């Protein structure tokens, strides 16, 4: 798991992951790159991350992928990421194409639903919580 302040260096990350894994006999390498879109008059997005739980969430996914003989990679931004920069890169490596395609879908969808990361729109230099796009984590309401 890799966390970086501000936008990600996508070519560096993808090249490093590919070069470090290509001799390990995985047949399929499927990255997912999230790029900040120019929309809603934002100048960018900003992110808070709760690292202890994120680490835990990711390690659970690593174990789950290992049972399928697959490996996962994950990088995310902290702080401001401007429009057309990237805030999120993950990847699945697997001996089997079918497993890799299934896992990248499941992993990215679960990331969206449960990774402890908070998103803000950057508008007029202000940080506005993206509440309507946010999702309650499983188990929410425990203290209500």
């Amino acid at each position, binding site marked *: 798991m890799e966390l970086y302040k501000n936008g990600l260096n996508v070519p560096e990350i993808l090249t490093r992951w590919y070069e470090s894994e290509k001799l390990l006999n995985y047949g399929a390498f499927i990255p997912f790159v999230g790029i900040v879109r120019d929309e809603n008059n934002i100048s960018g997005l900003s992110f808070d991350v709760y690292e202890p739980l994120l680490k835990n969430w990711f390690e659970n996914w690593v174990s789950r992928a290992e049972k399928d003989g697959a490996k996962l990679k994950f990088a995310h931004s902290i702080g401001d990421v401007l429009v057309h920069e990237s805030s999120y890169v993950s990847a699945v490596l697997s001996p089997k194409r079918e497993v890799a395609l299934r896992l990248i879908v499941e992993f990215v969808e679960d990331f969206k639903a449960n990774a402890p990361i908070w998103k803000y729109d950057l508008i007029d230099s202000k940080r506005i919580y993206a509440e309507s796009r946010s*999702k309650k*984590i499983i188990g929410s309401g425990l203290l209500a």
Partner: protein
Amino acid sequence: MVKIEFLGPINREAEYFNIKNLNDLAEILKNDSELIDWLEKSAVAINGKLVFDRNIELKSGDVVAILPPVCGG
């Protein structure tokens, strides 16, 4: 003392309480009008692990995190 962290958009300094479990914490926090809306939509982690039971015993040094709705990527 148990440390309570309010994450992301709750935007509030951590607080420390002498509590035995999450029932105690709920009793304290429900009187805080700033927090009441957040509690309904927030999950809870103890020492970096999500929990789903208010009766889990807390000890001094534990860190409880209040986790509002998320949106990574």
